[in-house]
């Protein structure tokens, strides 16, 4: 005992006092499901790729993106971005421009020539894909990356399906589409064009395929019965858009009437304006609010001088193209009812844009298939009633968009891969949703959305140049940094800083944090002050 005066104990550190025993609630780091990811029909990990884009690491961002979707440059142009509609930032100022950042990444990948990683090993299995549209290409990509051999057959002279033969050039330039298709083919995928599959069973057995994915789309324009003179010029919208890809552009005349209210009707009317029609009139039986076409497309069409007659149906067409229009009104249920009031409208061409049907003739004689409402019925794993034949895209019951099609392709590929190995694919359980209430929005900087440039109106009326421009690097970076990273730690160090007990251990860049439960008293400040809702409190087990 050689201690100073009045000292009987050695000096110790308070680290001997494990204050963690006070705790009744325990903080846990969690990953929650961001609403954008939850809303994406292609199942993209949007928050995940924005995380890399925020740091300016565009290649890593692109590589995370293409784990789910091999067509980001296409997506960044034609997707209706349900992600942005559900973005939590929309409740703060305006949604993150996810679609524009996606396009920037897609364009950057084309510009820099980034390529997909080749599969580590080959499975020796061979899969036939019928249809080189978004679903078929997406399935081919995923199956090839799983190591399977893939052959795509398509009846058309070029790949892309509705992306080429349905979506006008001013929304999707063809060099962009070509570049992204080529990158998929570079994985070793065989593409047979001008090859119609007339009977799928023959093709499957004759070609020695282990499985088939059908994605033929819906290319037959629906007809409606309209009494018409024999010389009346009535064509369907799909044919118009398809013939835009050929040498002979369709002759629509100076006055074009489009019948229907979907995106296809808008596409045809805008195409007609670019082909020189003085008047392009859309006739639709309900109101603007009820129109299935997307609001921004309607707006762009109106800017380009497309006229829309709401609450109108076409009753009759004369030989000279004079249309008889009946005014409608909406009843209490919102259905259009005839009013008995008529008016006349003249046209050189009437284009019907009333939806599309699927050509199911290749399925004749396949046992076990169920066809309903002109679409093929599939189980939740996208397999038809015939083992080994899967189907997706517009030919199965779904919302018919490119994004949904790409999502089907991924889902089918995962299920086909499991099926080829004699297993059943089980998706990982979804995390809890990171809704706005789980965030602490105080910490996010006030930053309004960056708007993309739009082509001037004169060029929109005379050319098929792309209407919507892209972001450059500086504003794409700004836009990516508007992401709130909902539900997923982005290493802001708040928990590490705000803990009064130093009970958060920082593990270093990219490694996130850990709780030191020896000292955590369970106050919950870290949970309250986590900007993105990536921590939760759970009762301590005693």
């Amino acid at each position, binding site marked *: 005992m050689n201690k100073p005066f009045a000292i009987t104990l050695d000096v110790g550190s308070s*680290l001997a006092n494990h204050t963690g025993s006070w705790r009744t609630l325990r903080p846990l780091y969690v990953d929650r499901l961001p609403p954008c990811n939850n809303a994406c029909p292609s199942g993209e990990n949007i928050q995940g790729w924005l995380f890399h884009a925020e740091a300016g690491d565009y290649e890593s961002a692109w590589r995370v993106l293409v784990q789910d979707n091999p067509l980001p440059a296409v997506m960044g142009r034609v997707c209706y971005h349900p992600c942005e509609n559900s973005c939590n930032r929309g409740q703060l100022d305006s949604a993150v421009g996810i679609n524009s950042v996606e396009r920037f990444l897609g364009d950057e990948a084309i510009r820099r020539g980034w390529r997909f990683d080749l599969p580590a090993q080959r499975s020796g299995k061979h899969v036939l894909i019928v249809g080189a549209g978004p679903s078929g290409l997406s399935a081919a990509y995923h199956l090839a990356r799983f190591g399977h051999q893939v052959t795509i057959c398509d009846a058309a002279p070029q790949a892309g399906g509705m992306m080429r033969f349905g979506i006008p050039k001013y929304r999707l330039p063809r060099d962009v589409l070509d570049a992204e298709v080529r990158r998929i083919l570079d994985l070793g995928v065989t593409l047979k064009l001008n090859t119609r599959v007339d009977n799928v069973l023959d093709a499957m057995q004759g070609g020695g395929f282990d499985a088939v994915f059908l994605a033929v789309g819906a290319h037959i324009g629906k007809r409606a019965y309209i009494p018409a003179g024999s010389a009346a010029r009535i064509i369907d919208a799909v044919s118009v858009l398809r013939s835009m890809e050929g040498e002979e552009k369709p002759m629509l005349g100076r006055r074009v009437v489009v019948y229907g209210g979907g995106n296809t009707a808008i596409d045809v009317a805008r195409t007609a304006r670019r082909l020189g029609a003085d008047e392009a009139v859309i006739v639709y039986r309900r109101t603007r609010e009820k129109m299935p076409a997307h609001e921004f497309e309607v707006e762009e069409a109106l800017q380009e001088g497309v006229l829309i007659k709401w609450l109108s149906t076409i009753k009759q067409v004369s030989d000279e193209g004079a249309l008889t229009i009946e005014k409608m009104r909406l009843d209490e249920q919102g259905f259009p009812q005839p009013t008995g009031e008529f008016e006349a409208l003249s046209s050189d061409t009437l284009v019907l844009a009333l939806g599309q049907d699927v050509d199911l003739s290749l399925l004749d004689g396949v046992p076990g298939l169920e066809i309903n409402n002109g679409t093929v019925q599939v189980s939740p794993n996208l397999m038809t009633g015939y083992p080994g034949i899967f189907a997706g895209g517009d030919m199965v019951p779904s919302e018919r968009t490119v994004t949904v099609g790409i999502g089907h392709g991924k889902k089918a590929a995962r299920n086909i891969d499991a099926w080829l190995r004699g297993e059943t694919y089980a998706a990982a359980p979804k995390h809890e949703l990171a809704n706005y209430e789980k965030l602490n929005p105080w910490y996010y900087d006030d930053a309004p959305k960056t708007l993309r440039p739009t082509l001037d109106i004169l060029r929109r009326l005379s050319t098929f140049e792309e209407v919507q421009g892209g972001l450059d690097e500086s504003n794409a970076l700004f836009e990516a940094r508007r992401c709130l990273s909902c539900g997923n730690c982005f*290493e802001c160090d708040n928990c590490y*800083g705000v803990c009064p007990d130093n009970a958060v251990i920082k593990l270093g860049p990219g490694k996130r944090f850990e709780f030191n439960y020896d000292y955590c008293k369970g106050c919950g400040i870290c949970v*309250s*002050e986590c900007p993105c809702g990536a921590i939760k409190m759970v009762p301590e087990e005693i």
Partner: protein
Amino acid sequence: MPFQPVKFYQTGTFTVGNRLLEPEVRSVQANMQRTNSLNSGHRACQGCGEALGARYAIDAAMNASNRQLIAANATGCLEVFSTPYPETSWQIPWLHSLFGNTAAVATGIAAAMRAKGRRDVRVIAQGGDGGTTDIGFGCLSGMFERNDDVLYICYDNEAYMNTGVQRSSATPPAARTATTMPVGPEPGNVFGQGKNLPQIAMAHNIPYVATATVADLHDLEYKVKKAIGIRGAKYIHIYVPCPLGWGAASHDTIKLARLVKESGLFPVYEAEHGVVTSVSRIRKRVPVEDYLRLQRRFAHLFGKVPAVATIARIQAMADQNIRKFGLLEEGTHS
């Protein structure tokens, strides 16, 4: 020049760190090598604002002084919860003074360092609002008046918490404590009394006076660093919520500090030689009610018959601060 926040990097400098910013503009607290001057294992209550504020301030001071720092600490919560014999949570040279003489002890340390020619060593005196505004006020005023080379930090939790929530001269009007009127027409602390210590410090014309809260770490660290770089008497008044004494949820500590500033009740500013040189403006103004409602010490204002007149008087105090210090951004309205 006040603290300049960095904007447009997702969270800018609102968060403790930010992987998108250069390391030098991140806070000291974001650093894996921070001193942790007040280490784990201390006996402060769950969610203690004072423990947090003390680590924020002393880590920043350690960083700014190149770890050449000595602190004197008044009696109070901070001293009691950090050093129960024979343990200590402090990872710095640290002395416990009496309740009332911290400023004088720090003055002595500064004199000793000067005598030894250790101009690199910086001296801090720290205490709670009781030890600062009441019991240690005479020594503090003397330290100011002599312009001793000491940074005095007051952690203001608005009452004597260690001994059981007795009123101090920093207790706000209407707040209930163990020694204010428990019942009657106007329970809680009276209006029109108490001391505004940052303003009193400014009246001494000392080189630097600042206020801060635990809700704005970058601003707090900026002020501590600035004060450490100034020779002479400095005073920083840090607002630190007390979950136990205020009857607030332990997870609301930082939220309360944010609301008190955003309501205007606690103006955050700095002053040099008696003149206000910068104010932290209100970013998202809130009524005082948002702040008061989270605390049981004000629960009597929100009973079956809300004390509308009392709440209005508190709101008027906030409004007066907003006018006096110009707390709203130019062109913004309530």
